[in-house]
């Protein structure tokens, strides 16, 4: 945990500032075989990805296709049965070695995980304080500064239950960022939100990314969201998950909702919609229950 840099370099002037080479991920020939009670299920089949430091990488696929497997492997929640994952040149995960969970690969989950008994400020400073790298007073100041820069001022003393859904999600992302992770992992974070609130938090994430340029590993089932947010989009098949298509999203940053009506976006969307539609139909017809 890189505590010397403290909070994210939100103050960097240039919008194209890249992180200092941290957060480069190599995923090579990774497969995952589940064996619950004798039923051998291949969740992921020989997937490889090269994620550059500071890249916004999105993985799209139908529900239950196994895309969360990759995120879990990087985060350290599960192991893999074949292949290797490297981060910044070091071996993170292999069949023999399970990655330890850590705040350098912090996860934002689908369902809100803000501590309801802490205020916003106490929630945000939780990680750094618990890890012992920083004093409470210093942490509070840094947190206030960070929240300010993210446009989340004025709510530090509120409890999560007093905030709107969109606000809570943003605080959660702020809390994650406070740990200065090498990579920010997001597991279908906006799935449970209605379309309107989603747009607000998506914009927040985009603005944050522009300032910080952290490596982002984002999982979603929504192709539109993937193209809107990502620099590189990996489209997965239904289980066993394989990479069907890789899309370079050449829409310039900073982006906002007007991108959604641009011709470039439409073209990209059209390009993938065939591939995605086919996989969705397969999942629809097979009626696969989602894997836990």
């Amino acid at each position, binding site marked *: 945990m890189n505590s010397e840099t403290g909070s994210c370099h939100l103050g960097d002037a240039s919008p194209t500032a890249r992180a200092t080479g941290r957060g480069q991920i190599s995923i090579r020939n990774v497969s995952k075989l589940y064996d619950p*009670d*004798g*039923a*051998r*299920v291949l969740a992921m089949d020989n997937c490889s990805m090269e994620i550059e430091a500071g890249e916004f990488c999105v993985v799209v696929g139908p529900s239950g296709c196994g895309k969360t497997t990759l995120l879990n492997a990087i985060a350290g929640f599960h192991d893999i049965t074949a292949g290797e994952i490297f981060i910044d040149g070091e071996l993170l995960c292999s069949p023999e070695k399970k990655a330890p969970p850590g705040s350098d690969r912090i996860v934002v989950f689908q369902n809100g995980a803000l501590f309801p008994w802490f205020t916003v400020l106490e929630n945000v400073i939780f990680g750094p304080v618990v890890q012992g790298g920083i004093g409470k007073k210093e942490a509070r100041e840094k947190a206030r500064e960070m929240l300010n820069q993210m446009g989340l001022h004025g709510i530090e003393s509120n409890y999560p239950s007093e905030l709107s859904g969109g606000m809570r999600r943003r605080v959660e992302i702020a809390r994650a960022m406070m740990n200065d992770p090498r990579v920010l992992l997001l597991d279908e974070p906006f799935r449970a939100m209605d379309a309107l609130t989603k747009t607000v938090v998506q914009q927040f994430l985009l603005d944050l990314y522009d300032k910080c340029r952290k490596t982002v590993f984002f999982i979603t089932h929504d192709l539109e969201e993937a193209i809107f947010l990502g620099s590189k989009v990996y489209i997965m098949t239904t289980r066993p998950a394989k990479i069907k298509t890789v899309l370079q999203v050449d829409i310039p940053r900073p982006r906002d909702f007007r991108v959604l009506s641009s011709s470039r976006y439409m073209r990209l969307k059209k390009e993938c919609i065939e591939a995605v539609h086919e996989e969705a139909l397969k999942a629809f017809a097979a009626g696969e229950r989602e894997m836990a």
Partner: protein
Amino acid sequence: MPQGSGQGFNTVKLKKKIFSRATFRGIAAVVVFAVLWELCSRFQVPIIGNVPPPSSVLKELGQQLANKAYWLSWKDSFIRILTGFIVAQILGIPLGLLLGVNQTARELIYPVFEIMRPVPPLAWVPIAVIFWPTNELSMIFVTFLGAFFTVVLNIIGGARSIDARYLRAAYSLGSTRGDIFWKIMVPATLPSIVVGMTVGMGITWAVVVAAEMIASRSGLGFLTWQSYVAGDYPMIIIGMMSIGVAGYLSSALIRLIGSRMTPWLRSF
């Protein structure tokens, strides 16, 4: 290739369970426990050393298993259990459903029910012995009470917490009141009936064992108590173990019946 799931008996699953690490650890733990127990007895460790050691228990067990009287004890206890339990279900399930579904009935009957319920079944033994013509009937009555209150309460709880969505959907689709009762309320309440039966069976065993100690001349509870009176200490352990096994078998049977009654709750 993914194997089939939930249809028929999955032998792979069973094999995995039997030969798993958890099973070996469990067996090892039991063996260690038995060995320690034996050693405590041999070395006359205070308090624990007074308990008859596994060696003498096993010796006695070998004799008992060939003894007809021992198995008669099983039979006598089981008959009381099953009779009490089955009557409890026959009377309790309809009563539970009635109280769960009908507000008038609930307002009339429930208060009386609530006054009687807190009295532990064992406290009923003296009055039961007085009122029932035979001791046997009085014991069956007491075991009946244990299971009866449990099943009625569980059903009332289940019936009253049926999700309104199902009722609304059923009414909209044109159900009569009879349809609602038989096609919606009864199946929706089945899981709580199963819970009531499972818990009830456990209570029944607890009750019958104690009742036999007080008021009977046969059965596993009596056997255990008699061994104490006669000073046959290994038999006490055997009595206890027998009660444990019998209770476990009964619960397993109920669980099996329960899962057959509610096929939609099985994990697929």
